[in-house]
């Protein structure tokens, strides 16, 4: 790329008395070409593989289609069906409950650890902690879930064995509804808090140390410094981090799919799992699209609400 493109322009050194207006015009035209050439891959790509499929899904939601037969227009039937379907309802409730708990936990843990890691300590130690804490992020959710399924196994899992040392009876982590919910939550947060942690590291380290030193002179310590300095100064970071965390969490699929397949019963079934099952197991592509649209609307609403709230609560110092 960089080998060919510079040839298209030559370094123009303006001779004395040259027409600067003509040069500016020429440069403006070159800029216009550059704008659209540079945007083309992204715009064409996103258009073809995101917008067209989104419109396709929107359309499909009003049809009954099983791939084999011709699509049949059914109006709002799919939406009516999903509103009546108890499995769909429970999976959305599961997802919302999961998102609330997981995101709060993720933000709290990540901010807390980011503040600790950025506090005064030898550099090698900081590097060590930082590395350890965001390590799970580089693993695949499927692999992690596979590992955790063994660890939380009721009979031979390490977790129950260790709890046994303290006299706790074997817990059916993945065989009871509540246990399975807890495991999915823990496995998800375990793997994903690292991303939020990284974002917060940037935010916390951007706060000038002098601010803390000045406040120390004024007698502010620990919690008060966190409350009065750290929290307001990382609030823009918190907004970005929470928007991303919520959008990601709403799409949870891999962990419950590998750990529990949505069970026991429907206790860990999530919105995306129901989309997957409707489409690729029951071949109800119209219904799957309708569920997908509801989920997407939910994601958009959450994001809008958050940006509205941020106008009131985020401090852009």
């Amino acid at each position, binding site marked *: 790329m960089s080998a060919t493109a510079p040839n*298209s322009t030559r370094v123009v050194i303006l001779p004395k008395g040259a027409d600067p207006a003509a040069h500016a015009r020429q440069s403006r035209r070159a800029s216009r070409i550059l704008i659209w050439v540079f945007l083309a891959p992204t715009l064409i790509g996103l258009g073809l593989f995101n917008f067209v499929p989104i419109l396709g899904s929107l359309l499909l939601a009003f049809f009954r289609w099983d791939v084999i037969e011709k699509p049949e227009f059914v109006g709002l039937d799919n939406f009516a069906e999903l509103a009546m379907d108890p499995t769909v309802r429970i999976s959305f409730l599961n997802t919302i409950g999961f998102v609330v708990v997981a995101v709060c936990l993720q933000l709290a843990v990540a901010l807390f650890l980011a503040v600790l890691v950025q506090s005064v300590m030898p550099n090698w130690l900081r590097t060590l902690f930082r590395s350890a804490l965001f390590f799970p992020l580089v693993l695949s959710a499927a692999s992690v879930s596979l590992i955790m399924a063994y660890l939380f196994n009721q009979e031979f899992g390490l977790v129950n064995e260790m709890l046994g040392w303290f006299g706790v009876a074997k817990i059916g982590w993945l065989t009871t509804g509540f246990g399975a919910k807890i495991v999915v939550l823990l496995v998800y947060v375990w793997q994903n808090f690292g991303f939020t942690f990284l974002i917060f590291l940037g935010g916390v380290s951007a706060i000038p140390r002098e601010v803390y030193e000045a406040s120390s002179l004024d007698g502010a310590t620990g919690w008060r410094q966190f409350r009065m300095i750290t929290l307001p100064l990382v609030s823009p970071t918190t907004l970005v981090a929470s928007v991303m965390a919520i959008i990601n969490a709403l*799409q949870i699929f891999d962990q419950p799919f590998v750990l529990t397949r949505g069970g026991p019963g429907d206790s860990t079934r999530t919105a995306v799992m129901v989309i997957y099952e409707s489409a690729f197991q029951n071949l109800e592509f119209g219904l799957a699209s309708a569920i997908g649209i509801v989920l997407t609307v939910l994601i958009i609403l959450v994001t809008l609400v958050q940006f509205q709230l941020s106008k009131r609560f985020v401090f852009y110092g």
Partner: protein
Amino acid sequence: MSITTAEPRSSRLRPAAVGKFAVLGIAAFFTLAPVLWTLYTALTPADIDTQQRSFGFAAFADVFTQIPVWLYTWNSALVTLLIAVGQMLSSAMAGYVFARFEFRGKKWLFALILATMMVPMQVTIVPVFMLIRGMGLADTLLALIVPMIPTAFGTFLMRQYFMGLPDELAEAAEIDGAGPWRVFFSVYLPLAGPSLAIVGILAFNFHWNEFFRPLILTISEQNFTLPLGLVTLQGNLGTGSVATVLAGVVLSMIPAVLVFVFGQKPLREGLAAGIGK
């Protein structure tokens, strides 16, 4: 957080430091322990008859006999690298335009691009599958690569990064007579290394670990990626051993760990520069 609250002044630092390191130590233990346990279990397979565990690479050898590891690794590497390079190029160009040029409809276009991040991939997978079939790419590795070259998040990240670079760089180059193309390729792009690294590393990490799309978009085994292959291994769980599955997991982790070791710095710094400000 109540590290230094009510302690008398003289003894304030010590318990605070101890508490801090204890908390961080416990957190680090919890993030690393499951991985170390996986490694340990994979390296100490149990004998089928005696259930005696002994150290060795037998479980890893089992993985190679049960699935074509090299083929899956090659597929994964090809898909992942091409996506990473493609995303770095496309996002650098688009991000640069959004950061440094004014044109009609810019805000709109940028909002639309960001909006695509809000639609889950699982929602659009059926139309994407149909599109890919229409393009004659069904059941090829290109089906996994091409749709992922454009990146809304990468564009956002690169835009943030380029916005943070001073205008004076362009002004100085323009006074020297450089046109807009040259300003990009000789001035701004060489400065974008940290941010490009994060786009590339995030892409590598995400697509190396990706499961959902390959599951749907590839059909024949010769196009499987490593995570799909691992599931084949998991299918043998009834007859095979925990150690074999976990050995497969360990093998698939190696590139991710390498990225982690060598790419950690650009990843962190890129994130800090891009969005964590």
